[in-house]
């Protein structure tokens, strides 16, 4: 019998759901609201500081994990929600959602890789 890929994608959905539940609200608040509105010092997101974070391998891992798991969580859930709205699950719709998450992850990985070579 062909093995199902469901455990892989469900684990990524679960891991992304847990990570975004633990730190998602704080990340959105800090990056998308507090810094642009000046609630915290705008220098926290200055180019040299963010660049240094993204050139450090721990920082790279943090960025990659956040972007990848948030995408896998969100797109997996979106694909099931579309089913609830009557867009029926087919291999194509499923592959599209998981595929977009994979593409996003690869783009993030590539961008982080180019930052290392630029340093």
């Amino acid at each position, binding site marked *: 019998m062909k093995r199902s890929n469901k455990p892989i994608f469900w684990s990524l959905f*679960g891991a*992304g*759901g*847990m990570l*975004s*539940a*633990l*730190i*998602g*609200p*704080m*990340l*959105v*608040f*800090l*990056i*998308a*609201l507090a*810094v*642009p*509105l000046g609630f*915290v010092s705008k220098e*926290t*997101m200055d*180019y040299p500081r*963010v*660049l240094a*974070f*993204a050139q450090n391998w721990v920082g790279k891992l943090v*960025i990659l994990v*956040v*972007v990848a798991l*948030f*995408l896998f*969580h*969100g*797109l*997996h*859930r*979106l694909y*099931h*929600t579309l089913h*609830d709205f*009557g867009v029926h699950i087919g291999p194509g719709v499923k592959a599209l959602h998981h595929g977009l998450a994979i593409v*996003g992850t690869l*783009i*993030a990985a590539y*961008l*982080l890789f*180019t*930052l290392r070579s*630029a340093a």
Partner: protein
Amino acid sequence: MSTPNTYTRPIAGWWRRNPFYRAYILRELTCVAVIVFALELLVGLWRLVQGPEAFDAWRASLAQPWVIVVNCVVLALVAWHAWTWFEVMPKTLPFINLGGRRVPDRAIVAAGAIAAVVASLVVLFLFLTL
């Protein structure tokens, strides 16, 4: 192959019929906010790679009033995702036994919420000091 010509009960608008369904759909649609935020970060990373001017342009775009409004909605939905994630955790986790007794649902929800507060404070501390 032609599809059988049998009656299918229409499902359009099913979720508007009952408050429980509406809450379910709101919970599931929080995923859109999680995707939007991930894409915002991905764009930011792309602009970071392009250099200081591009990165500052990305930051300026985040400060536009309509983007702030969108991100307020994103924050509300991600926070709702976080709360509902821990709220259903007693159902999504296997039973946990401590000292021969099943850990009560309320304790699991509370542990999740406390973990989120601690993790968020760690993120805040690292963000401000690193």
